[in-house]
């Protein structure tokens, strides 16, 4: 392939057509990706508002602004919306849809109609979720039985909504697996694939294998409420712990659905802004598959205090530590890529470096919870909340922000204001750490999660966390204001503003509907930085 810089974006490319029909009926993977991005970002904001309300309530030890029940509803909706409507679909269905075909040199995904169907199934799912708000959920996002079988909330409705969202997730994953197998451009061998594709491939496998299980689980939960089916009801011989097994058989692997695509983005951004070939390409690629595989064997570590047998606890704990190995392989390879690179600190790189830093903290606090003795102490405290948010917000969401800043010029054909982007980054970085690092301390001191009221001795930490959450919110508001300004009046983006080598940058910004004027022939891997003739792996 010739490494020509893409042409400057004069036309509107794939955005040429206007009107709602051109979006609602589109089969273009780029437009479907954009629709997913807009939708998921809306839910990110709604989920974020719930989080801010929770932090507001926790300013004082006594419930002040709303009732305990309202508090339960808010943390349930915060969790359920962030997980099911934002963090699971945002990177795979949003950025993945847009960039998988472009990365592999294809004109579209393998099944464009199924792709559109997956968006509308997703839309049906979130409408049902919204409908469940007439009697909002108060169970926490984990829906544990037997409480979820008995509460007056609209559990069956919400279950149906999440079932539909799961179907959409399966369709997307299936589409990506087939696309990556069958539609690679000539010369695009497996070992020349961008690492984002490896991450997305591993993600898709998890989506396809794990999601059906949670689908059935929610179906059974709904049937328990509607027909009195006995699976999880101890009064009829059912087993509530079985629900937890089913739930975590999906919901543990799915944290890798959240993190693997973000790791893929980081693997793209780091070499571009270090001007160096990625270090340990194959190790990073195969560690994605290893994480996906190991992710299926460790679900029991969510249930150490649920009454499993001690042997099962020990096995799950033992296996959990293995996840740290491929994860550390990635982190060390990113750092090795940075070593002696010509690093520049544009906004995508700032978020990528933030990812490595925050994810290292989140990752290293994982073994505390995977080890039986400490988990019994830390289970259901704010330590878990902090660990989860360091991996998921510090990890996935920072990776998502890195991807948004990195690909904004490609998707919109406009450049962002870099100075404002960096100010937003600084606020997000400070706000995030003030909010969540404090929670590690609150948790070790013993404050349990999910309570509207707490002992006065935890107040100082809670006030700090709430102040941090306000800084974080301002940072995110500035970031998205910058996105809007960029969309409205950003200067036209050149085809390849970051001088990157992967295929999506070798076409105009925004790309044309067919992605490439001609299907490129690939002769090299996408990381041949710093040398005129990079090594062909």
């Amino acid at each position, binding site marked *: 392939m010739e490494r020509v810089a893409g042409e400057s974006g004069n036309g509107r490319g794939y955005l040429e*057509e206007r009107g709602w*029909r*051109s979006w609602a*009926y*589109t*089969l*273009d993977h780029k437009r479907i990706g954009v629709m997913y991005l807009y939708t998921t970002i809306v839910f990110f904001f709604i989920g974020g508002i719930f989080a801010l309300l929770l932090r507001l309530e926790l300013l004082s030890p006594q419930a002040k602004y709303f009732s305990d029940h309202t508090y339960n509803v808010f943390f349930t909706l915060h969790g359920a919306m962030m997980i099911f409507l934002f963090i699971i679909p945002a990177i795979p269905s949003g950025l993945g849809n847009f960039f998988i*075909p472009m990365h592999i040199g*294809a*004109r*579209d*995904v*393998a*099944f*464009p109609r*199924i792709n559109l169907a997956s968006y509308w199934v997703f839309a049906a799912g979130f409408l049902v979720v919204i409908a469940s708000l007439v009697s909002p959920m108060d169970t926490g996002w984990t829906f544990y039985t037997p409480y979820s079988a008995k509460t007056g909330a609209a559990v069956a409705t919400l279950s149906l909504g999440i079932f539909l969202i799961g179907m959409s997730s*399966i369709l997307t994953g*299936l*589409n990506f*697996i*087939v*696309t990556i*197998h*069958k*539609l690679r451009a000539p010369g695009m061998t497996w070992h020349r694939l961008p690492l984002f594709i490896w991450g997305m491939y591993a993600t898709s496998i998890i989506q*396809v*294998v*794990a*999601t*059906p*299980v949670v*689908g*059935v*689980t929610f*179906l*059974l939960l709904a*049937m328990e409420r509607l*027909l*009195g*089916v*006995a*699976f999880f009801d101890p009064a*009829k*011989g*059912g*087993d509530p712990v*079985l629900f937890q097994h*089913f739930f975590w*058989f999906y919901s543990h692997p799915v944290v890798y659905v959240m993190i693997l695509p973000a790791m893929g983005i980081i693997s793209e951004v780091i070499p571009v802004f270090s001007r160096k070939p990625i270090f340990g390409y194959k190790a990073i690629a195969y560690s994605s598959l290893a994480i996906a595989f190991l992710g299926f064997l460790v679900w029991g570590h969510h249930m150490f205090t649920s009454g499993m047998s001690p042997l099962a606890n020990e096995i799950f704990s033992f296996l959990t530590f293995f996840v740290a190995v491929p994860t550390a392989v990635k982190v060390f390879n990113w750092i090795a890529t940075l070593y002696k690179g010509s690093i520049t600190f544009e906004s995508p790189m700032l978020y990528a470096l933030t990812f490595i830093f925050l994810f290292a903290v989140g990752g290293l606090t994982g073994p505390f919870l995977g080890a039986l003795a400490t988990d019994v102490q830390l289970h259901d405290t704010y330590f878990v909340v902090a660990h989860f948010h360091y991996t998921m917000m510090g990890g996935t969401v920072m990776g998502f922000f890195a991807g948004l800043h990195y690909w904004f010029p490609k998707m919109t054909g406009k450049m962002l204001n870099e100075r404002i982007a960096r100010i937003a980054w600084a606020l997000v970085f400070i706000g995030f750490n003030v909010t969540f690092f404090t929670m590690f301390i609150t948790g070790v001191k013993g404050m349990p999660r999910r309570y509207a009221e707490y002992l006065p001795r935890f107040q100082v930490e809670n006030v700090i966390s709430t102040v941090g959450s306000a800084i974080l919110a301002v940072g995110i508001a500035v970031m998205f204001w910058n996105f809007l300004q960029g969309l409205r009046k950003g200067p036209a983006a050149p085809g390849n503003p970051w001088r990157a080598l992967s295929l999506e940058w070798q076409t105009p910004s925004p790309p044309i*509907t*067919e*992605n490439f004027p001609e299907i490129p022939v690939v002769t090299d891997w996408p990381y041949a930085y710093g040398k005129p003739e990079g090594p062909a792996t």
Partner: protein
Amino acid sequence: MSTPPSGHTDPRIALEAAKLGLWTFLATEVLLFGALFTAYTVFRVKYPALFQSEHLKLNRSLGTLNTIVLISSSLAVALGVDAIRRGKARLLEKYYAVTVLLGAVFLCVKYIEWTEEFHHGLYPGTNIFFSLYFMMTGVHGLHVILGMGVLSYVVVLSRRGRFSGSYHTPVEIAGLYWHFVDLVWIYLLPLLYLIG
């Protein structure tokens, strides 16, 4: 709307993609039923006596009849696929119509069975065994309905002259799906009806 960008212009790749897509989809279906089979295993190990006594309340003759009906329907699907491979679209339509009909017979028998059970006061909430029985046969029944819809759609497409000896990917895909639905029943029959 402009012409949709096609991911695959080469029909050979399109066929390969469709087959890989369907096998991946069947993998998700295996996992979906897998959860139910797991629950079955857990509870059968926990309550062997309950499963022994409760399964005798099921109607074995109707269960056997339905097995024969479904296996015959699979034969019809196989013959239909064979017909279109030899380019005989009219024959394909007949075989697939027979399959849809047999699917309807299966559902009618299932309806009679369920009615009988309700009549005897056996409901999904009666006990663990009947929870499993109604959920497993119910989810399977939904798949039969879905399969009938897919096969009917293939018949409609065939009548419009879409398929030939050289192009009949949707026929094969739909057939494969029906065989899967059949296969699930082959497991359900001994697990639910033939425990003793």
